[in-house]
Each structure stands twice: as C-alpha cells, then as structure tokens.
C-alpha cells in the first residue's frame, strides 16, 4: 500500500513539474507599419513557419526550451521585397531577449521600415 501511495505521489509530482512549460507568443504592435512573418526564436528553438502576424495581432503560443535568444522574422522592406529583420529588445538594446522560465511570455514587436 505504501509503495502504491509513493508511486502515485511520484506520478503527481512529475505531472506537476511537467505543467511548468515555458511558452512564447509574439504580438505585433498596433504601432507596426507592417505584418511580420517567418518568426524564429533562439536560432530555431521554436519557429512559427508560415504564420503571418498582422498589426495588433498575437501569434500562436509555442513551447520553448531556451529562455534567452534572438527573435528573427521577415518583413517587407518597403519596396515589396522581404528581408530578414534585426530584432532589438528594448530592455537590453541588443538582439538578445530573455523570457521567464515556466511562464507564458508575450513579446511585443514593432516593425517599421
């Protein structure tokens, strides 16, 4: 009986630990001049593929493993051509962003040509 209680407790413990997922979604600010697409987090730790995020919209949420990394995306450069945009985080002024482990994180981006 004791063994069974231990096993069930262990199972609950694992389940509880497993629910602490780190998730990330990207919001395209209403200040953006364009939609963003082809979002990549931390050199491919998560990728939103063909999902297009229009102004004032939020992308789907994805589970990520890395809590520090670069966000990359493509934008129209103003001439109809697509370029790989450099994403600068306002907290650090660099290309590296940090998110909280075990949380649902939303990063708001503002794209401008």
């Amino acid at each position, binding site marked *: 009986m004791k063994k069974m209680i231990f096993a069930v407790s262990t199972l609950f413990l694992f389940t509880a630990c497993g629910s602490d997922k780190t998730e990330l979604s990207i*919001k395209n600010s209403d200040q953006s001049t364009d939609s*963003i*697409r*082809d979002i*990549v987090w931390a050199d*491919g730790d998560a990728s939103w593929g*063909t999902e297009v995020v229009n102004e004032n919209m939020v992308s789907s949420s994805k589970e990520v493993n890395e809590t520090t990394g670069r*966000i*990359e*995306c*493509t*934008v*129209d*450069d103003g*001439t*109809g*051509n*697509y*370029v*790989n*945009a*450099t*994403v*600068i*985080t*306002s*907290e650090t002024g660099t*290309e590296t*962003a*940090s*998110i*909280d482990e*075990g*949380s*649902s*994180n*939303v*990063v*708001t*981006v*503002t*794209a*401008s*040509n």
Partner: protein
Amino acid sequence: MKRFLSLVCLLGTQFLFSENGVIWQQVSGSWKIDKIGEESFLYDLRTNGYKFNYSELINNNSIRTLASYKYDRISLKLNAYNPVSQSSVAVFFDSPGDYREFSAFRFSGSKTEITKIQYITSRVKDTTLPRDRKLNFEIKTLEEKTISLPYSSNHIIEISFKKNRTVLSINEKEIMSVENKDRPEASQLGIYHTGNLLKVFYFEVFDGRKPVIMDNFSTDTIRRSTVKATVEKKQQ
C-alpha cells in the same frame, strides 16, 4: 585666385570622392563593419541563413545597394573563411528592383577549397503572383567552370561588362566570359554568402572612368530593417 579656385575644386573633388555615398540594404545575415590596423572591412557574423524562400538573397546572407546605378565594372576584394561542408559566395548584379531578379557569379566549394564558379541568373517564375509567395523564383546555371581557390586568402574579383559580354577576373586573371545581352540600364548589386564567414575590404563600381561606388567600409552605411521588441508581460 585661379590657384585658389583650383585648390578649392581639388579639395571638393577629394571630399566627394572619399565620402561614402552608397547605402547598403541588409537583406539577410548580420552585417557589420570593423577595422584592423588601417584597413577597414565589411563582415557578416552569420555562417548559415534560414530558407525563408522569398528569394535566393534572403535564403543566403546578403547585402545589396539600396539605389540603382549605371555601371560597366565592379571590383572588390574579399576573403571567405571558416567554411562548413558546403560553402558559397556570390557577387550579384543587374538586379533592377525585385530581389528575385539578378545575374551573379557564384563561387562554391567544399570544406577545403573553392572548387567551382557558376554564372547564374535568378528570375521570377510567375509575375502575376504576389511578392509574398514563396519559391516563386528560379535559379539557372548558364555556365560553369572548375577552379581551385583557397579559403582564408584575399581575392580580388573584377567583373566587367563590355559588348554584350560579362567578364570575370580573379586576382587579375580572366576566368570566365559569358554572353549577357539584355542588361538593364541601371540596377542594384551586392554580395551574398552561406556556409562560410566573409570579409569584404572594398567594393568599387565604375561607369567608364567615373567611379559610382567607392566603399572601403570605413563608415557604416548599412540600412537594417529593425523590429523593436519588448518582453511585454510575464504570467505565471
């Protein structure tokens, strides 16, 4: 007085000549400028890119002039180093507007040396489709030649356009001459690479004797499309 005016004109010409008028558009990669001793250079931090598939330029790490120029000669000094298994560097030109339209000399190689030069063109497959349609471009190899060029060495690349032909010279030796009948009057140009790191020490473009781009990368004139990000909220 005449001497004074001549001096003023000469100084003005020098100023205009040394002033860097070109603005580069970073299409893909992470391009920076730096300086070692007296020599400044352009370099890219990226080895590989993502296959976003809007164009060959975005699939590789590329940089292109923002403005169009009329030109008949391109001269640059570059150094490709730290290659991975498949590596390439290309100098592209005759790119009037659309990133999917250009001609280029593409150098490809293995991990040990550059083994091949190709004259390629990129064209839009279906011009009726919107620009955000992926894989709507086609790369064609029109000519190809095997060569042996070392990595981690400086190479002077010269491309000249004369009488419907485009001629490629490397380190002052003519390597390839290809037919090129329908050149646009003016166009953008640039470089791309993948599978290696790249330094470019200068990029010069001429129209006859007139220099139209004289960039030794002493100043950063790269236009980067930026996206500002804020970690907005964190919910437990």
